[in-house]
Structure formats: C-alpha cells, structure tokens
C-alpha cells in the first residue's frame, strides 16, 4: 500500500513539472534545459520563505513567479540575443545553480516543523484521521488538477492558440501580425513557472531543500511527457494534459517497480530509464509508419 501511495505522491508532484516540460518540449518544440535548475529554485525559494515565516500558499505563488522570471531570461537569451535554444537553457541552468545556493544560503536547508501546504492547522484533522496516510496524495492531487484545469483553459485562449501555433507553424504567428519571439518567451515563462511550482510542492513534502534534487529533472519531465503522450496517443477521450499527468505517475511506477523487484541496482536506474525511453519512442514511430502506409 505504502508503495502505491509513494508512487502517487511522487508522480503527482512531478506531474506539475511534466506539464511545464510539455509546454516547452511538445507545444513549443523547444528543448528547455533550464528546468534542471528551476525545479530546485522553486525548492530553494520555498525553504527560505517558510523559514522566514511566510505562509506556505504564498511560498507556492512566489516560487511560481521566480520560475516565470527564470523562463523569461531563457526566452530573452534565445530570442533577443539569438542564442540556440539548447544553449540558452544550459546557460540559465548553469547560472541559476549559484543563484539557488545564494537563495538558500547553502546546499541544504531544512525546515522540518514549519507549516507547509501538507502540514498546517487546516490539514491537522485530516492527518490525524484514519485517512491520514492519504493527505499528501489528496493535496497533491488537488494542486495538480488545479494546474491542469488552468492550463487547459489557458491553451484555449487567444494567447494559448498562438503558443500552439508557434510550435507547429511559426509563419502562421507572423502572418497574424504577432511576434513569435514574444510568444516563445511567454511559453518558456509559463513552463518554468510550473516547474518551480513543482519544486516548491516537492520541497514542502520533503521538509528540506537540497541542491542535488534538481539533477535529472529534465529527464524525468521528458520521460513523463513522452510516456504519456505516446502511450495515450489513440485515446482521444483523454486530454493531452491528463495523459502527461498519467505519464508522470507511470514513470514513477516503473522506477518503483524496478526497485521493488530488485533486479536492478539503483545505479542501473538511469540505464533502465534510457532503455524504456527508447522503446516507447521506437514503438510510437513504428505505429506511425504503419499508419502512413
């Protein structure tokens, strides 16, 4: 039971990150590596704020804003300074590392015992109830659904349509007399905002910030997006955002299963992830070919 809860908690929290990666990777077609530092940035900001006595929901909001700012920087470097997309992300990722250390005042910052979105006066009755074990899952689920619904709504607005057009066919954006650069910046800002939000929720669950948590966030995000979108490509009743959330949970389930079975040493885990990744990509390419013929 606890393993399923563990998977759900992790999967749901990382789903927010996956939704951010979905915006850049799938919608904008922009491989944004700044994610590896915006995730811990959300965590660093949250840890610092909570210790300063800021209420936990406000910490979520401020983390989101910080992520948005980081995304804007990536966008500006790419659009205004004409740096290749991959490199813009790497530049921001590298620079943010130091900024994250400065925000948290070190590589590790604990805030056990502070009120978080999971442990506060309002959730106390739930925590002590028989369903207490489900608290984190329930709250994470609410946050993820809120993010998903807002994102779905946004993608239907005029700005959202432009965002999708910018990835598919940027000439269209230009022909509508809109600046495709601005659209990209908006997309990156939103995406990194979500990633930082995910980092904030994650760190509130953990009770501490640790700089190394960001390592590999982009891989987790990409894997979730690809698993979700490729596996549920035919399931037209599912919104892509929902598929991405399920993808994130499936990804965490795969890791947990591999670990529980005990076939793999944890040091092989990255290899397993890579193999899984490749297989899903290959399968989806094959079925695409068949469909064409």
């Amino acid at each position, binding site marked *: 039971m606890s393993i399923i809860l*563990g998977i759900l908690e992790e999967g749901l929290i990382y789903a927010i990150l996956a939704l951010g990666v979905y915006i850049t990777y799938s919608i904008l077609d922009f491989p944004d590596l700044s994610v590896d530092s915006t995730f811990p940035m959300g965590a660093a900001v949250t840890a610092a704020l909570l210790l300063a006595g800021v209420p936990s929901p406000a910490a979520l909001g401020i983390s989101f804003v910080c992520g948005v700012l980081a995304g804007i920087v990536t966008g500006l470097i790419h659009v205004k300074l004409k740096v290749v997309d991959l490199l813009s992300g790497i530049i921001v990722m590298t620079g943010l590392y*130091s900024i994250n250390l400065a925000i948290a005042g070190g590589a590790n910052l604990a805030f*056990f015992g502070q009120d978080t979105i999971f442990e506060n006066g309002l959730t106390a009755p739930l925590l002590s109830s028989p369903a207490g074990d489900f608290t984190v899952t329930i709250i994470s689920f609410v946050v993820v659904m809120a993010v998903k619904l807002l994102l779905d709504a946004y993608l239907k607005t005029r700005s959202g349509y432009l965002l999708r057009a910018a990835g598919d066919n940027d000439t269209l954006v230009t022909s509508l007399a809109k600046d495709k650069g601005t659209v990209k910046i908006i997309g990156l800002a939103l995406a990194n905002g979500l990633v930082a939000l995910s980092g904030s929720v994650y760190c509130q669950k953990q009770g501490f910030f640790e700089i190394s948590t960001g390592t590999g966030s982009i891989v987790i995000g990409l894997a979730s997006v690809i698993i979700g979108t490729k596996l549920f490509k035919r399931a037209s009743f599912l919104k892509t955002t929902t598929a991405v959330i399920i993808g994130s949970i499936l990804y965490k389930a795969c890791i947990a299963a591999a670990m529980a079975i005990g076939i793999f*040493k944890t040091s092989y885990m990255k290899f397993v992830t890579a193999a899984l990744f490749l297989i899903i990509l290959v399968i989806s390419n094959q079925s695409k070919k068949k469909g064409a013929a």
Partner: protein
Amino acid sequence: MMKKTIAALMITAMTATAMTACGGNSGQTSTSAAPETTAAETDAAAGDTQAASDSGATALADGEYTIGIGQFAVHGSLDNCREGFLQGLAEAGIVEGENLTVLYENANTDGGMGTQIISNFMSKDVDLICAIATPMAQTAYGATKRADVPVIYTAVTDPVLAMLATEDRMPVGNITGTSDKLPVEEQLQMIREILPDAKTIGILYSTSEVNSQATLEEYKAAAPEFGFEIVETGVSGAADIPLATDNLLEKVDCLNNLTDNTVVSSLPMILDKANKKGIPVFGSEVEQVKIGCLASMGLDYIELGKQTGHMAAQVLTGQAQASELPFEIIEQASFYGNTAVAENLGITLPEELTSSAAEMFDSITN
C-alpha cells in the same frame, strides 16, 4: 499496439536481467535476489564479521530483522560507514545472513531517487532504516514521520543544522544516529606541530555540499588562534578542481582536506599536483592518509559506523527507542600519518604525534 508495448517491455526486462546476472554480485543484497547472489554476499559478510564474533563470541540476538540501508553517494568514507555499521550490528549479535536481512540502495547523489528508495524500504516493512549522509537522513525523517519505523543516521556532520536534533542533541522524532563532525581544532594543532612555519592553509570545497561549508566556517573561526590564515576556493563540480587546485597551490603553504565528496573523489589528482610543488596535503580521515595525504587528525569511518551499528542494535532489540537516544559523536580524534609521504616531502613527523598514532602507513596505496 498494446501487444507490441508489452513485448518491448518484456525484452527490456529480460535484457536487463541478463545484464545484471553477468555484472551482478557487486553490492546489492535484496530479499528477492537470486540465491547465488545471496550466498556470495553472505560469505563476504561472514568474512567481515568473523573477527568480531571470534573475539567477543557474541551470541546471536533473538528475532529476525530486516533493515534498509539508504546511502546518498558512492564514496569511500560512506562505504566505510556502511561496513562499520554492519560490523557494529554483528558485534551486538545481529548478523547479516543469520538473523538479519539487509536491503541496500544507493541514490548516486540523486535527491529524487532518495525518496523512492525510502518508500521502497517502507513498502517492504523494514524494522529500521539506516540513512547514510545528510540528505538521505532528512528524506528518511520526512518519509517516516507518521510511520512507526525508526531511522538511524550516520555521516551527518551537523544534525542540529539539518534539523534532525535539537541543541541538546535530543532527536526531533523517531530518528537518531552519529555525526561525523571533524575535530577542527585538533587538526589545526597537528598542522602547527608538523609545519611550525606555515602561515596559510588552502581548503578546496564544493559549494553544493552543506557539510563542507559548515566545516569551512569552523576552520576560518579557529585558524587565527593557531596563527593560520585560511585561503578557500569553492568549486561547483569535479571539472573545476584541476584549475582551482593550480590556483590555490600558488598561494598556500599546505592544503587541508575536508570530507567533501566531490573534492575527495578527485584527491589523487590534487595530491599529484601538490607533490610536484612539494606542498603537503593534510587529510580528514584515515582513507585519505592511505592514498597519500601526509597526516590527519581525523575520523575512522569504520569506527563511526560501528558506533552507529551499536545504536541500531539497541533500537532493534527494543532496549531503547530511537526517539530517546541523543545523537553521538566520536569524542576522541585519532592521529594517522603516512611516513612514505613525509619522506617524499622531506618532513619528519613529530615524535609526540607518531607515538600516539592510531595507525601509521609506510606506503602509498593507489
């Protein structure tokens, strides 16, 4: 489509099984591991614990125990902690392969993986979790808060700063263990005795490790008392170390190592550069002296692990609650010296240090 997916997953699983079957046996013990793996592991463990049971002739403790050991990184000192921990348990009659099943996982410095490791342990109903290094201990504490699983940590430099204990060393929850706080003043005193004329000490540390920063601050605070000035250089990864070392060696009379994971991993390269300039490098624990540091007033991580193992045994057998045991530190710093290194540098280690040494090495292990 679905069939293909399943087929593909099967293939990955089989490939990976084949892979582990060839390359396995190198560390993991798991309840569900293949019988031959378990046998090999038990032999190894028996070898380690033989000495302990010979000398003490300890009887096996009652009951069967399963523990999960979560280690943050692959690292000599941390590996020693784990080894010592199992020895400590064995001395108390809890022997791996006899009445103890050990699940061991390593997060390879990936914080996200740490969480999954702990929840995997919880799902297997372990009787106790041993968390090695600060982030792992914090993850374990966060995850076990509402479960009835005691956590014993080790290699946490400052449990108070990590919010795992209060100022009076008492645990904040069902979690306690040992700290690997370095004996900073003793180390400075030793450097003064070995190098009476030295003025500056160089310290390399990585900005991503909270333990290193804390220790560095202590060095800076204590150095003036012994007439030293600390020159520090922070690195953000192993790739920065060669340049940082060159730069630092220009400015200092000697180098002093912390237990910084990143820097220690690059120690052979640092030693090589320092040797070429004839600058002595001091270590922070026995392993570093073995591979070529001049001397160290430091910790023996095996001993630290043993001490931690004794605490774990008390908790497992129900003699004590983790929530009631204050965290422990190694009070006595021990001197380790390497005479081969001293000879190369043309330095004689003072008699009063060598006579009370815990261990002296006369060769450099590579």
